[in-house]
């Protein structure tokens, strides 16, 4: 920092907290956070598969854990992270084609991503709970 030299007097761009938080900023951060969450969540998938492979006793123990309130909250969060990250990824695909950079479109896609992810997650859980006989 504060280095003397030819570049010292260049203007610096304002730091993060100067900017007004916007939906698009939040969506960008959420894509990264959900990616990180899915990274950690891969442990859950591995755990579930290993439990199934290791026998009825241990599998019943693990699916019992999944059935607790805490287990369900974790799984609900995992579902949302997955769906949100997937929709965010589709948004990236649209950008990768070179289109969708107009501000109204960007704003619209940000809204669609968050509303879509919450809606789809609710739908998935509604279907799952109906099929397994309610709460």
């Amino acid at each position, binding site marked *: 920092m504060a*280095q*003397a*030299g*030819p570049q010292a007097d260049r203007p610096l761009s304002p730091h993060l907290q100067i900017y007004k938080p916007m939906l698009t900023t939040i969506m960008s951060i959420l894509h*990264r956070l959900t*990616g*990180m969450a*899915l*990274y950690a969540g*891969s*442990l859950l*998938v*591995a755990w*579930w*598969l*290993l439990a*199934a*492979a*290791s*026998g*009825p006793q241990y*599998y*019943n123990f693990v*699916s019992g854990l999944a*059935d607790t309130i805490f287990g369900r909250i974790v799984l609900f969060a995992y*579902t949302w992270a*997955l769906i949100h990250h*997937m929709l965010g*990824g*589709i948004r*990236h*695909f649209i950008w*990768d084609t070179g289109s969708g950079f107009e501000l109204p479109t960007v704003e619209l896609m940000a809204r669609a991503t968050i509303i879509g992810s919450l809606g789809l997650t609710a739908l*998935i859980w509604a*279907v*799952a709970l109906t*099929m*397994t*006989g309610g709460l």
Partner: protein
Amino acid sequence: MADMRTPLNKVRGLGSAREGADHFWRQRLTALANIPLTLFLVFTVIMLAGKDHATVTAYLGSSLVAIALLALVLSAMVHMRLGMQTVIEDYIHSEGLKVVCLILNTFFVILVGLSCVYAIVKLSLGA
């Protein structure tokens, strides 16, 4: 002391890593594959929620399901490793710590991935 070298001079000779396009391409390819494969996982978990162990193992071990799960594991492994690599490179600037984190990233992904593969193969062989 002031560093009088120009920014261009500082990076000249370091060369490009020449891996950017490959990273990008594999990230997108696996992202694309992940869409149907993770939807399949969600569908599978819903189908199996609350079912007894025998039903679960019979389903997970059946050929098509096992192959789809293996494809998911492979695609997700590559994707999550590249994704975490980007995050590490964005936030960790000290060269030593960065290398350690990149190594741990690779080890974590391989460990989790191989655990899944082991379980899927075991289920397929009738665990």
